[in-house]
């Protein structure tokens, strides 16, 4: 009746159309990202030598918090209007549908962070040489952040106070990504290569991409049982 990739393509088109209709929503995590970054110099110090010390950390912490903010949008609307239930009743395996959904969500919330961060790195006195490490780190790191967050979001879907609980569940698991992401930029700024950090981030990214959709599907089936 309907081919597998027919369903997936339609799912992707629907997610992107929704993101487009709701593009105001996609802006909020980016604005949040910018605001959080500007807090760091205000809170710590505007001097260049200090900025260079905590610039990478500030960028990564802001990216991490911004991606967590957008997690709440992931399942709450679909749970509320009953679309999640319909996804469970399609012949196509849930993990494929969720993989498409997560990809669409990453395109609308993760990728913009990756492109925005070099523009904001400059005020932090990060030299040009560190930009590739920053962008590569975010490119590999944001999918990991998204998938860890998606599993927690699936576990807490429909719970009262789910938003706050979501942050408590995801933040401790974000620590390795933060450490290696920031480490990559700091390594380059010290003249060392960022290869070890990026390869570790890459490994985490691969593991998350292979097991993430299946685990999210399992978590959703538990929540919607």
């Amino acid at each position: 009746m309907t081919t597998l990739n027919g369903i997936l393509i339609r799912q992707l088109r629907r997610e992107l159309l929704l993101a487009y209709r709701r593009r105001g929503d996609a802006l909020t995590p980016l604005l949040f990202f910018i605001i959080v970054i500007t807090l760091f110099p205000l809170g710590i110090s505007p001097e260049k030598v200090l900025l260079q010390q905590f610039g990478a950390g500030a960028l990564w912490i802001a990216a991490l918090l911004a991606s967590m903010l957008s997690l709440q949008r992931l399942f709450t609307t679909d749970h509320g209007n009953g679309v999640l239930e319909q996804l469970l009743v399609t012949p196509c395996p849930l993990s494929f549908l969720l993989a498409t959904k997560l990809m669409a969500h990453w395109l609308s919330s993760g990728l913009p962070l990756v492109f925005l961060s070099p523009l904001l790195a400059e005020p932090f006195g990060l030299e040009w040489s560190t930009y590739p490490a920053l962008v590569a780190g975010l490119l590999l790191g944001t999918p990991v952040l998204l998938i860890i967050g998606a599993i927690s979001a699936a576990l807490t879907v429909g719970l009262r106070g789910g938003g706050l609980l979501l942050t408590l569940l995801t933040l401790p698991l974000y620590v390795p990504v933060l450490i290696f992401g920031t480490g990559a930029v700091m390594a380059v700024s010290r003249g060392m290569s960022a290869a070890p950090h990026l390869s570790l981030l890459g490994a985490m990214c691969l593991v998350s991409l292979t097991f993430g959709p299946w685990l999210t599907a399992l978590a959703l089936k538990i929540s919607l049982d």
Partner: protein
Amino acid sequence: MNEARLLARGLAVSRGRRQLFRDIDIELSSGDALHVTGANGSGKTTLLRILCGLTQADSGQVFWRGENYGQSPEPLHGELAYLSHHNALYGDLTARENLALAPALNPTPAAITGILNRLSLKAQADLPTRVLSQGQCRRIALCRVLLQQATLWVLDEPLNSLDSGSQTLLESLLDQHLENGGMAVLTTHQPLSLAGAGQILCLDSEVAG
């Protein structure tokens, strides 16, 4: 591919220490309709969700075309249209977009327009569904069920917020579905007059099982 039959044997579910129902047996072949009745909270929705393979009964099995689908409901899902209390519509998308991009179907634009006209939703076709009334949204959800051309319909309170005109329309749609070999399991509080001899299953505890 053996012929379409829905079978349930000895279904039992309890929530905490309260037993909702037990020893429920269901047998539906093409052209049959099962009308599940019972007070609120008697487990009607849970039974429907079990039949859809969305949840597991505490004990008992469910078969579709002779295959037990308790663990792997994918084969059934290819031939199932499920309408729950929610209409599964996005408020930001228009009725047409919701139907065009719904998860389980691949209708042509002409089919969408046809079905929307048939359920007198012509004027609302291109409005975001958040501005429509509950009754109109329910009819759009019914359009989705029709477009799916599924063998088995599982409808949870399909008449919710429908006016009497739409109710008679739904009855005729159901009759037509049953005539060309379809099956349906539905729950309603209002009386439903179907052409064929529909089976009745009451879930109130003193009667059940």
